[in-house]
């Protein structure tokens, strides 16, 4: 346990990087994923196809492959991003495919009659989406989005494999010095657990606030 208390600052620094990666990755995934979902439900076929291809490629590829391609493949065509940026972009791009499907699923739970009513009132596609469809749809998306948040938080540990000095990477460094694998990975595992539980708590609170009280 002494190895943890002696290096707590180093570990917490790694936790901070993990939190940053998670926050940036999830925020990016939310933005891009929502845009993609709009593509997939839009009346314009090329956009629908683009959205579908994106989701099928990114969702069906291991995140580690994506990271390795991004970090070691792109420099070969002259594009070099910092390791942190690369990891954040990959997490966002990967998460976006899942967010897209969660948002689309949420949209599909709103009865078609609602959209028809909105259109018969003269609302445009954008207005229908923003004012009629998305508000109730968001309620059903909360839990799937919490799952995606947890997926991104835990997935950020793969960034250790491409040299980002986040929590898992720092745990490995400390283990090299001290040979205390069990203690170290228990502690870092507990930190990931805390992030995931926190995400679940926020999601639960959000869901309660958004729920429609039965009258």
């Amino acid at each position: 346990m002494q190895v943890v208390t002696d290096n707590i600052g180093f570990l917490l620094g790694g936790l901070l990087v993990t939190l940053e990666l998670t926050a940036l990755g999830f925020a990016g995934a939310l933005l891009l994923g929502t845009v993609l979902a709009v593509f997939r439900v839009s009346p314009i076929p090329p956009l629908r196809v683009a959205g579908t291809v994106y989701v099928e490629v990114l969702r069906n590829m291991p995140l580690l492959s994506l990271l390795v391609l991004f970090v070691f493949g792109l420099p070969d065509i002259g594009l070099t991003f910092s390791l942190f940026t690369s990891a954040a972009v990959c997490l966002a791009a990967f998460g976006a495919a899942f967010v897209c499907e969660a948002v689309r699923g949420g949209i599909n739970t709103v009865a078609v009659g609602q959209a028809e009513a909105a259109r018969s009132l003269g609302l445009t596609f954008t207005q229908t989406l923003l004012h009629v469809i998305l508000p109730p749809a968001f309620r059903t998306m909360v839990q799937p989005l919490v799952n995606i948040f947890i997926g991104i938080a835990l997935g950020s540990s793969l960034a250790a494999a491409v040299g980002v000095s986040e929590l898992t990477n720092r745990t490995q460094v400390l283990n090299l010095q001290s040979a205390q694998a069990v203690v170290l990975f228990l502690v870092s595992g507990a930190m990931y657990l805390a992030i995931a539980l926190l995400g679940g708590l926020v999601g639960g609170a959000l869901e309660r606030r958004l729920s429609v009280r039965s009258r």
Partner: protein
Amino acid sequence: MRTTIRRFLAALATVTFMVALASCADSGTAPPLPGSADTSRYDAVIAASPVADPAAITPGSWADKVRQRGTLNVGGTDAGPLFSLKDPATGKVTGFDAGLSQMLAHYITGKPTDNTALTITTVDTRETLLENGTVDAVFATYTITPQRAAKVAFAGPYYSSGDAIMVKADNTTIRTAADLNGRTVATQANSTAVLALQKAAPGANVLLFQEDAQCVAAVQQGRADAYVIDQGILISDASTNPAVKVVGEPFSTEPYGIGLPLNDPTAKAFVNDWLEAIYADGSWANLWKATIGTVVSGDPPAPPAIGSVEGS
């Protein structure tokens, strides 16, 4: 019907995209890695190594358990060039560490082949797998340190290596470890090279990657200024890759030991006796020639004295 067609088109587009990606990446064909070719010389060295006198194996001891089982459960890797690398075509693991594990198994069981069962260990799992008895011995460029010696017993050292520096072929500014201060230096996450580096160049910004190939790519692509790891591995990489070079002499000493369970004192004494035997009859030097000697020029070095470092 329409959705079926659309799904089919989407799948088609996806596959096309992946194939296109793969064909882009295929442009630089990698040369064959050392060790993946003819292994007859290597096999001969193992077959010629000594076999223990059955009377020397005390009933109930560590070695006796291995002999009864017929295979030595080895902890190691299959992705370490020169030391323990698997040939994907034949499934055979060869290298200096792999060869020693096969020699030890030969010594105990008398079988020259199929005498080991490899469990892939990482730096994160080695001590734990020895402590809980999953593996009998760890051969994994396992540097002997006092911290590790508190958890496992080390036979050896059986090889003394050192970390050296790899840079881009056109780099002229990095010559010694001191030049690494203020630079970005890549190394493997599972190697004690990071500790040697922190000691020799405390001002270096360290990047930890999972594999050797990634560290080389990081240097080649300019993401890191240098790559620090065991000199033999660097020489092996540079021998197949003209874009990088190895500079200077090793700046650290890495005594490699064989990790053994701490709770069975018969193991360490037995393995040390075996090491003395293969030092004496030349098997150790022959194995060096068949593995590390294929990329490092000159005669085999003198093997390190058993028990000569702290923790062994």
